[in-house]
């Protein structure tokens, strides 16, 4: 009799202890969740960036990284996300595609991260696409867009820079309307590259809607003189031209056109917007040059996001960069990363992050870009544009209209 009672009491005690233990464990797990093999620790989260930080593309990609790091730093100063600060591990691709394969391995197993942003090299994206798609690490906010990585839409990949088809539509639509031409004749001035050929195709498609024609003329990426290309422009007499390439492409083309007395309006792709480019083109040729962009450079308008970014840039010694579209792009992808991380909850893992993002989310950049809508089937990235120009007198950017005004060109 006695034994049974003691037995029962013992069992009850055991059960109580077990319940107590489970409760404590649950509480502590909540407060101190960590998953080091995925870069999540008690007080910080490791987040990876893969970009060209040295070499020819570092002029834009290095600045993008600075923008990203600046936004993350501003969030860390406010306490981070769910009590964790974000630690950015930026790996240099060194303009060497094989290096990205090494960097991806580093960020997945050697110094594991929760997610990766950036991925500036298109060849690396194509090369790593099978590995990324079959892996577990989400890519939040790519700097460039390639088919193998983004088509078909993967729950792991989210675009972070202006999408080309919409860029072409918005640019062609705006110019056609502004110049009041019936069937626009457009020329694409591009560097000899894969992306240039693709962009020219998007322009051709956009122009076709208005019953116009387009053609392509190319130059070397390290060209020092573009007389042959300008002579071609003179021969064809387009209504307006669009420029694809690097800063030099835009500068040489605009300066040469000015030299030949051509006043043909031109618009560059979103990447080609920085104070250096405008300064090099000069106040005589500059007014003919605008940029179709999904991001708003510092000072182009007075939105809350713009002011916040300018303040942070000045604080962190990035004042020279805040008018560079790459800086803004990095900052906005920083916003994307932080908002995605918030969606993942207080116990983030790679799987939870992917699940949260793939349900669909909208990135609010406070006015720096139109709301970036990610749906379960569309991860393309910022796809709303407006034309930005430069006022040499006031020494600041001018934005022509709001993002919503360009909606009509998107059909």
């Amino acid at each position: 009799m006695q034994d049974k009672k003691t037995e029962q009491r013992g069992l009850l005690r055991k059960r109580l202890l077990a319940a107590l233990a489970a409760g404590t464990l649950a509480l502590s797990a909540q407060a101190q969740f960590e998953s080091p093999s995925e870069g999540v620790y008690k007080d910080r989260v490791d987040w990876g960036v893969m970009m060209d930080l040295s070499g020819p593309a570092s002029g834009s990609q290095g600045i993008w990284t600075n923008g990203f790091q600046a936004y993350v730093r501003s969030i860390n100063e406010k306490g981070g996300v769910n009590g964790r600060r974000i630690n950015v591990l930026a790996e240099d691709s060194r303009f060497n595609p094989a290096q990205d394969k090494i960097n991806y391995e580093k960020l997945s197993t050697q110094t594991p991260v929760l997610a990766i942003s950036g991925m500036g090299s298109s060849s690396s994206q194509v090369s790593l696409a099978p590995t990324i798609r079959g892996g577990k690490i989400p890519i939040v906010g790519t700097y460039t867009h390639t088919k193998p990585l983004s088509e078909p839409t993967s729950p792991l990949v989210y675009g972070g820079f202006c999408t080309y088809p919409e860029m072409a539509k918005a640019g062609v639509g705006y110019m056609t309307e502004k110049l009041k031409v019936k069937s626009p004749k457009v020329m694409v001035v591009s560097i000899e590259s894969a992306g240039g050929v693709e962009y020219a195709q998007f322009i051709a498609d956009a122009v076709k809607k208005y019953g116009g024609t387009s053609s392509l003329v190319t130059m070397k990426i390290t060209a020092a003189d573009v007389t042959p290309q300008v002579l071609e422009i003179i021969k064809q007499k387009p209504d307006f031209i669009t420029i694809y390439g690097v800063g030099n492409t835009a500068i040489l083309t605009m300066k040469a056109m000015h030299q030949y007395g051509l006043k043909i309006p031109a618009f560059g792709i979103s990447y080609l917007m920085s104070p250096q480019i405008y300064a090099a083109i000069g106040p005589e040729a500059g007014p003919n040059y605008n940029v179709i962009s999904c991001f708003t450079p510092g000072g182009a308008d007075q939105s809350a996001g713009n002011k916040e970014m300018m303040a942070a840039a000045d604080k962190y010694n990035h004042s020279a960069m805040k008018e560079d579209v790459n800086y803004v792009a990095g900052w906005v992808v920083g916003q994307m990363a932080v908002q995605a991380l918030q969606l993942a909850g207080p116990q983030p893992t790679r799987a939870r992050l992917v699940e949260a993002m793939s349900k669909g989310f909208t990135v609010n950049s406070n006015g720096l870009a139109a709301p970036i809508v990610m749906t379960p089937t569309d991860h393309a990235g910022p796809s709303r544009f407006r034309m930005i120009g430069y006022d040499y007198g006031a020494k600041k950017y001018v934005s022509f209209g709001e993002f919503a005004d360009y909606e009509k060109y998107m059909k």
Partner: protein
Amino acid sequence: MFIQVLLSGIALGSIYGLVALGFAVVFKATDVFNFAQGMFVAFGAYFAVTTINLLGLPFPLAVAAIIAASAALGVVIHIVLIQPLSGRPMLSVIMLTIALSIVMRAVIEILYGVQSRTLSTPMPTGIFLVGDVRISQLHLVAAGVSWLCMAAFGAFFKFTSIGLLMRATADGHEAALVSGVNVKVMNRLAWAIGAGLAAIGGLFLGQLQIVSPELEHIGLLALPAVVIGGMQSIPGAIIGGLLVGLIEQLSATYISPKSSDILVYVLLLAILMVRPWGLFGQRELGRV
């Protein structure tokens, strides 16, 4: 239209010729194939940014400072790097200049950041209209200055005593040493000249486009120029530069932009097969 392209080819070619001349002087004097010549061009452009844009010096003073600084850099590099390696196999020296260009590029990126810079000089940016042909004033100035430099150095080498001594030293080191010529000083002078000429080229290129470490690649085009013209020949380097500039512009206009690089290298290969010492060089005799 043809004249337009021709003129732009001559303008570009003059700048190549300037860089090629610097290259040839260094090669003739010290037997070093300086792969870092392209970086000297970039350094010249960046010195220009510092003196003109950052320090705001008056233009003539800035130009003098640029040339002096580049020349000093050339001398320092010779003393620290080239001299210790004299007598080593050629491949080692080439590799050294390549490593040097890597270090120089990294230093530029650390000092000036990775963003490209604009150069705003008081040089004219307008146009002359001669009939149907538009001549950029900047191109004209660049070509003019290049020709002036090349003529000045031509005269220097031919008529002044130092110039003669340099040529003598380049032709035979032992003989020069025996004659009491300070070979070290001659070599340093050669490197100073090579770097200085590259810097002037950098100044013009920086004004024509944008200042970035990518200017190095334009300097690399001076290599085929120098070989086509004749590596041991001063006038050869100049002619080679002009030829490369003309081929580039003419082929870009009449064939396709892609073809310009290839044609230059095809010509290079052809010259090497048929007349390896270049158009104006001298046949080298092999000694047992």
